[in-house]
């Protein structure tokens, strides 16, 4: 799709948008002027979209160095009177948590919307935390869109609630919504023509204890007023099917419930909530009163269910409440039509035929996510492997971090031993170096280094730790889709920016062993790693080579065509290229080892790996 359509003022036009694109459209339609993020699946396409159209759309967008910074950029734009938005994956909110908690006290001037994209089932995350819990913890209004069109509308609604009550609004998406496409009917773009200006008010914006005590009280008062809003919100909808029992649900789960009861004509009425915090008690009570039995359907934590059970107790309601059952509806993984169908049929004591076709004894081959052909990380991992073998080190510890290189966990490298969170490789290396005599080699990507790798590196140097940190600098934020970061030289607006030089930064800390290598040059890389492992203290090697996917694109555009092949006459079938290097382009066919020309990226590292010089450039 032409992303410029997201700037269209053609009211009523239908677009087929990804949930994340719809969030971007909502920001534009609602007159948003400042947006900031740190990329992370499943939120990344909101930023990718805004970045491409920011100039034309006359708003500011940035890829910040981390979520906390992004949060503060958007929050302060709000304090200047502009409508602003920040968004990230669920664990990004953990990074922004400190300012997030304060922002509830400080409040807003211009509308301020925070989008958290949670990841039930962990399609691309380390946990499946339910950020509705964090929204309630911070005492903020929470909206839960059900489809892309609501994603668009709720950003605008969020701006309005935020301005009316001077409070940030949290919108909670999940992978299934962020990455579903649906029809979105666009509205006119609001033109607010605001002149941003920060009006000082330290008693509101500086929560020293004396102020904070008042601000917390004010927050609680605000939330009482906002409850009136949620009680009457157009986003809390009752579907009356003359049902015998009631179902209370919210967000994406509503779709599963409604599809199943319509398709199988099950006798339920449905209360679908879109505005879930403050919990609309009166509205829910009025619904519950009509039914002897009420089922709560929600993924992950029992947020609504707990509210409903408290409400029952507080108001002496008679309805029996059903929810998580530890069998079908658990706190694990995303829900879907099958899970909802199974639960509702079993609730009604009805049977249904499962018509599932199986093919036994034939399985598809494993296709784990893998480092691409030409990936510079593979070359770095191979170099480390060679050095460790030469030095006869068998028990080195590899604290890893978050990025494509976490795939070093796989065969044949086995080079990811721990991973907590963004930047954790450096802090973890510090701890290991004080608690074990094993060699410590930790890995961090360029974007992750800027995100959260610098404070722990200062800590490591100052506390005299002993480890080697390899910065895998592929000059992009690769895993989330190639967003720029400070080592790239392009910013979120698409403008050139001065690059931040990682080696200068590291030297600035005072670290003396700092080397920059090109992983496509195996000899150079191996020498540097060997030297580093023989020294004491904190050593940093920056292994710099641009991401193979970006290089591929450039080569294609420039018409450069380099492919390698295996010369059968020289190949001795030692399989080192397969068993130790494992580029996906190299494969075995019968007795021969071959290179798949369509996959070969022409990096030439395999030619350096081959001890018999059997891998040659195709002429």
């Amino acid at each position: 799709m032409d992303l410029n359509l997201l700037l269209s003022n053609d009211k009523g036009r239908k677009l087929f948008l990804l949930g994340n694109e719809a969030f971007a459209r909502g920001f534009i339609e609602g007159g948003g002027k400042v947006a900031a993020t740190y990329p992370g699946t499943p939120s990344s396409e909101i930023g990718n979209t805004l970045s491409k159209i920011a100039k034309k759309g006359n708003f500011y967008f940035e890829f910040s160095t981390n979520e906390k910074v992004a949060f503060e950029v958007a929050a302060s734009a709000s304090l200047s009177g502009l409508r602003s938005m920040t968004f990230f994956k669920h664990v990004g909110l953990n990074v922004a948590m400190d300012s997030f908690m304060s922002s509830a006290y400080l409040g807003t001037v211009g509308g301020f919307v925070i989008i958290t994209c949670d990841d039930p089932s962990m399609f691309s995350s380390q946990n499946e935390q339910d950020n509705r819990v964090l929204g309630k913890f911070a005492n903020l209004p929470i909206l839960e869109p059900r489809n892309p069109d609501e994603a668009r509308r709720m950003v605008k609604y969020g701006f309005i609630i935020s301005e009316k009550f001077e409070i940030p609004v949290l919108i909670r998406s999940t992978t299934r919504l962020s990455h579903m496409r649906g029809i979105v009917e666009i509205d006119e773009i609001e033109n607010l023509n605001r002149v941003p200006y920060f009006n000082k008010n330290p008693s509101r914006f500086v929560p020293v204890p004396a102020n904070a005590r008042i601000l917390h009280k004010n927050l609680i008062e605000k939330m009482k007023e906002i409850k009136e809003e949620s009680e009457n919100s157009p986003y809390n909808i009752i579907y009356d099917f003359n049902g015998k029992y009631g179902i209370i649900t919210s967000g994406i789960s509503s779709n599963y419930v409604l599809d199943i009861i319509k398709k199988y004509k099950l006798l339920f009425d449905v209360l679908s909530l879109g505005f879930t915090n403050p919990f609309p008690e009166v509205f829910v009570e009025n619904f519950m009163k009509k039914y002897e039995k009420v089922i709560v359907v929600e993924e992950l934590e029992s947020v609504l269910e707990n509210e409903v059970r408290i409400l029952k107790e507080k108001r002496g309601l008679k309805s029996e409440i059903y929810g998580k059952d530890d069998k079908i509806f658990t706190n694990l993984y995303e829900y879907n039509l099958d899970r909802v169908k199974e639960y509702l049929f079993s609730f009604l004591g009805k049977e249904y035929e499962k018509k599932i076709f199986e093919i036994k004894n034939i399985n598809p081959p494993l296709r784990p996510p893998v480092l691409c052909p030409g990936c510079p990380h593979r070359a770095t991992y191979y170099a480390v492997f060679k050095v460790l073998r030469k030095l006869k080190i068998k028990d080195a510890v590899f604290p890893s971090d978050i990025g494509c290189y976490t795939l070093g966990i796989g065969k044949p490298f086995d080079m990811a031993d721990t991973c907590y969170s963004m930047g954790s490789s450096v802090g973890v290396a510090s701890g290991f170096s004080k608690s074990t005599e094993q060699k410590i080699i930790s890995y961090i990507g360029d974007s992750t280094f800027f995100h959260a790798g610098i404070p722990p590196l200062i800590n490591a140097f100052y506390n005299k730790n002993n480890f080697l940190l390899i910065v895998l600098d592929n000059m992009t934020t690769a895993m989330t889709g190639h967003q720029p970061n400070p080592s790239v030289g392009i910013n979120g607006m698409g403008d050139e920016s001065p690059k931040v030089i990682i080696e200068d930064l590291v030297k600035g800390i005072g670290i003396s062993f700092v080397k920059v290598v090109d992983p496509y040059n195996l000899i150079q890389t191996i020498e540097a790693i060997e030297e580093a492992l023989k020294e004491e203290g904190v050593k940093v090697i920056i292994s710099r080579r641009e991401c193979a996917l970006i290089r591929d694109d450039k080569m294609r555009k420039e018409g450069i065509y380099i492919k390698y092949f295996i010369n059968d006459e020289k190949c001795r079938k030692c399989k080192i290229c397969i068993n130790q290097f494992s580029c996906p382009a190299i494969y075995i066919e019968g007795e021969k080892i071959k290179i798949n020309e369509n996959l070969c990226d022409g990096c030439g590292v395999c030619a350096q790996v081959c001890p018999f010089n059997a891998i040659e450039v195709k002429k």
Partner: protein
Amino acid sequence: MNEYNILVVGVGGQGVLKLAQLICEVAIIENKNAVMSEIHGMAQRGGSVFSEVRIGDVLSPIFEDGEGDLIISIEPSEVLRYIHKAKKNSLIVINDDMIVPFTVSLGISKYPQRELIYDELKRLTENLFIINGTKILNEKGMPFSLNTFMLGVFSYINPLNFKLESFYKILENEFKDKFFEMNKISFEIGREEIKKLSYNKTKGGL
């Protein structure tokens, strides 16, 4: 309830998501409701990718197990991973071009014999179509337009009786200049090739 469920599966880089999106766009200009799901992240290249498409009066972007009306597998073995989504006599279209993952070279998994896969599928459905779009397009020097080739195949099978002009409209909207020309040719080759398999247009439709 009207629903037509399509599963598109393949390997990262084959254009799975684009094909699913194009089918939906055609449905929308035919005034149908369409929703689809995508899975992003982790699988940059070589990973298993799938997308579910639902056309009709539905809300959920994923459909029930055993409810797939049409399965398009752009890689022969990938259909196995999602076979629980198929039903008796689903239409199954396979692009007969194997992509063998490195796990097979490493000896930690096996690529099943294609004949065995197809025999099993024939047990499930009378509507199995096997076509090697990759080979055909490589021969014509257009290796990057497999998704529009498969769209051409879909347009000929045409289970929902969409107008041919709707497909052309979407190709025009989605691709510009020389890319439009290339994808239009690829689309037409797809139509021609499936025709050669003497597909019998009697089933399907909302």
